[in-house]
């Protein structure tokens, strides 16, 4: 059987959604038999290739997040917003009621880092579906390992992913 290609990305998130994915524990090995990881924080590929599935953790807080998200969308057939941050900005979006400049100067004083190597911060933290089409939303902060596993198992076996009540939580 041909392995499905899966990419994962962490944008303005905390990595907790990736941790929850690893929390499927030994089932990780079953997963790795069925999929081939593409670009992901867990591999050393720096570019996305054509993928069957893209999992996105985190919202958009700077120009680079937007670029990575668009790249991923271009390369994958199905895109999933994983967790509160990707779905609605999550906790980092708490900065949306503040002025970014004021926020930066309160932290860095007069010399706010501004090297061309640093991507420009956005004035607000955005959900990923403000910018690209999203096929599935998996709520939770993070979604539980059970929910992620259930979703992946359905997807990899060609079923329309369906999470029962017990697997959906908003925290």
């Amino acid at each position, binding site marked *: 059987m041909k392995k499905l290609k899966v990419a994962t990305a*962490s944008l*303005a*998130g*905390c*990595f*907790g*959604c*990736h*941790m*929850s994915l*690893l*929390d499927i*524990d*030994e089932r*990780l*090995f079953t997963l*790795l038999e069925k999929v*081939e*990881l593409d670009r*992901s*924080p*867990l*591999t*050393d*590929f*720096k570019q996305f290739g054509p993928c069957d599935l893209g999992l996105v953790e985190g919202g958009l*807080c*700077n120009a*680079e997040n937007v670029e990575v998200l668009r790249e991923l969308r271009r390369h994958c057939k199905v895109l999933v917003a994983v967790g509160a941050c990707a779905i609605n900005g*999550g*906790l*980092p979006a*708490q*900065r949306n*009621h*503040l002025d970014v400049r004021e*926020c*930066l100067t*309160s*932290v*860095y*004083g*007069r*010399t706010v*880092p*501004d*090297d*061309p*190597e*640093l*991507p420009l*911060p956005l004035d607000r933290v955005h959900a990923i579906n403000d910018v690209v089409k999203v096929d599935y939303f998996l709520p939770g*902060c*993070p979604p539980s*390992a059970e929910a992620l596993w259930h979703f992946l198992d359905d997807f990899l076996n060609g079923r329309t992913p369906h999470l029962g009540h017990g697997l959906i939580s908003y*925290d």
Partner: protein
Amino acid sequence: MTEAQPATRRVAIDPLTRVEGHGKITLRLGEDGKVLQARLHIVEFRGFERFIQGRPYWEVPVMVQRLCGICPVSHHLAASKALDVVLGATPTPTANAVRRLMHYGQILQSHALHFFHLASPDLLFGFDSEAGRRNLQAVAAEYPELARQGVLLRRFGQEVIRITAGKRVHGTGSLPGGVNKAVTAADRDALAAALPEVLGWAREGVALVKRLHRERWELYESFGSAESGLLSLVGRDGRLELYDGVLRARSAHGALLLDGVDPARYREHFAEEVKPWSYMKFPYLTALGPERGTYKVGPLARLQNCDFIHTPLAEAERVEFREAHHGELTHAPLAYHWARLVELLHAAEVVGELLAAPELLGSELLARGERTGEGVGVIEAPRGTLIHHYRVGADDLVTSCNLIVSTTHNNQAMNDAVAQVARRYLDGVEPTEPLLNHLEVAIRAFDPCLSCATHALGKMPLEVVVVDAGGAEVGRAEKRGG
């Protein structure tokens, strides 16, 4: 700035992979291919400290753990400890036991994750192995038993967290004044039953990393090595202590610079610089200044800073580590892996001790006291010393929040390591992908948590250095904290 140096060539490793969070490395090469500059940039800004102001204090331990999904427990507990002080509450023996158990579970899972899931491919396959092979998938294919043990070690640590905090990632178990969840005898027995196997895997892990290090001693001891001081908490009796203790700092050659310092007084001893090319600040010991006052934190600092480890298996490993280095301090980033695995073993031993302690199952979970307005909480997170500092008004709302996260302390050390490796491997040669991976190997050894690192404070003495494109200093300004 960059236009001013047309003859240089920029090479970037972007994004850094197999590390937590977002960062990149850039190199500037001269016409002759000489490395003129090598930098680690932290590219994200999130501003937690700012938006925590104005929130009710009891939300804080749950909010701040969203700084980091790999070590949420560290932030959860450092905030709880700081807010214990604000409440004037001394946690009960049961609350302390539950929190400690949560913390050592977290050290165990985070260290396992870093070594087995993220860093091991570099050490097992070689720094210049093919990019497509450098990941957990290949480790699982070629070393299935090792990969399995890594996953199970991490699972155990995560289960300890679930049982004490309610959830594996972002639980709610600790709160200002204590904890809200008792551990049941059934939970304790289930963990205790799994422990012998966990200890066995932890010992195998130490044996593996030691063997890898000893087989390539010259390389491992010199790769990216740069001298600096060391900083960590230690117990009052000098033991390795990760939950609560006093601050100790040593010079690069081992002389004590600070000892027995009450963590609440951290601001008297540290200051930090901002550099315009990174959102992560550069802290240093105030007494020594920004040039000589930089230091490392984390497993390598802790193992060499303490006088002893109170658990027998890890203590034997510590002694062996020190003897292998003839009692001298090592500054080799790759020695972090060895130290980290010794700590993983120690964490498993401490979990065993706590499971056997009668107070763990007690029912006195919360304490009260006389309100104060301010509190500092310091903990040794998996990656090093973590400082949380809050002021809370009479209306229960947070008026100020300072965080110094572990990875920030290592900023200079990581930049030094990158610069050293770049000069050694990339000077005058074509920067191929496998060679560039060497720079990432050096960074990974520190186990940086770059999401945490996007937080720094505005209340400490702050020094700003402005440099021109060639790195020469053109201005300097200082702002004293309030």
